[in-house]
């Protein structure tokens, strides 16, 4: 069947099967940041935005995004590079396995709640499994990033 959708602001037409999963379709279209981790709807590594909401692309039928906007890390390069570099400088990424999904979900959080408290950050991160840090580094890194962004705004 034919699928038309908007991938990273570009109109896409592609052929899919009824049981094609969104993760496979976006990867076939070159979005290799989207990775298959657990495949049981738990790890968050396959996170993409559908209509600006973070979802698990390993569990979404591709057919369901007909006509919708899908955004991957490739479509968020400016935001992702800014935040990713800051997090790396903070030493808050370790093995890096969780990073693509983690950055996607963090960007979703910044958009929904620009000033989250610790509990709200941890609640958001709970959908991204990280076995290295217990989220300590990520929590510290996100807080430092938000402070940095606020101080930049103050200077502007």
């Amino acid at each position, binding site marked *: *069947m034919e699928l038309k959708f908007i991938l990273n602001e570009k109109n896409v037409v592609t052929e899919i*099967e*009824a*049981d094609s*999963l969104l993760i496979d379709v976006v990867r076939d279209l070159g979005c290799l940041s989207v990775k298959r981790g657990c495949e*049981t*709807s*738990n790890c*968050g590594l396959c*996170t993409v935005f559908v209509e600006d*909401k*973070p*979802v*698990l692309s*390993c*569990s*979404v*039928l591709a*057919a*369901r995004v*007909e006509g919708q906007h899908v955004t991957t890390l490739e479509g968020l390069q400016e935001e992702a590079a800014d935040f990713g570099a800051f997090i790396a400088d903070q030493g808050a990424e370790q093995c890096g396995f969780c990073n693509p999904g983690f950055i996607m*979900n963090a960007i*979703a959080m910044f958009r929904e709640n620009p000033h989250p408290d610790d509990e709200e950050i941890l*609640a*958001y991160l*709970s*959908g*991204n499994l990280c076995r290295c840090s217990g989220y300590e580094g990520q929590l510290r890194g996100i807080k430092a990033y938000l402070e940095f962004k606020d101080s930049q705004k103050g200077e502007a």
Partner: protein
Amino acid sequence: MLQIKQYVKVTSLDEAYELNKKKSNVIIGGMHWLKMSSKSVGTVIDLSGLGLDEIVETESTFEIGCMVSLRQLETHEGLHAYTMGAMRDAVKDIVGIQLRNTATVGGSIFGRYGFSDVLTVFMALDASVVCYKAGEISLKEYAKKKADRDILVKLVIKKQPLRIAYLAQRHARTDFAMLTCAVCFADGMWRAVLGGRPEKAEMVMDEEKLLTNGISVTEAQAEAFGKYVAEQLEFGSNMRGSAEYRKEIAAVLVKRALLTAGGNA
């Protein structure tokens, strides 16, 4: 691995009902469970084009479409206020925000899962279910029925003055609950609902009148009611806990939830 021959985004409930008569076809909610199976499905039936993804609050009810996501339940201010935060407490630890953005209330309730936080809190709220053919039926009854080919269209919560609190015991934040618990005071009586025993949620009313001061509850009364509820229900063992452990925890969760929902005497 799940195999699907055909995908149909239906344009009416009637179309969905006709398609769903065939046993090899299935209605999809968030599809998280179905996707982990190795079933061979004829047609998956998608209800997402029917406008059933809204929470409609009126003066007397909340009407919650079957395609409403768990995240919508979590962030709806009206539901949050009415349930004293219990709705948010019930869903906030279900995996992560990404899953809750697609997992649906209809899928959760239709599945009648033993571990279900969602079934527990809706049952405590004395919600009803509206099915396409069977019409409105209390969730308490619906939960006991075996899954059939009818379509769960929406859930209805009739507003009334109430006090409610939700608690669950998890070994880790996003794991399945080892035990789910909601207590609610309405119509002059307390009720407790416990799920994850590991069987699905069941309700126990304060038939013995252990809580006699309306919403006011003393610690001793809360403890007595907790033990009473634990005695009324059956508990089983699985990888998350033994029956004995669950029974002990059940009494404690009921007590704590009562002291949260009730005022001090």
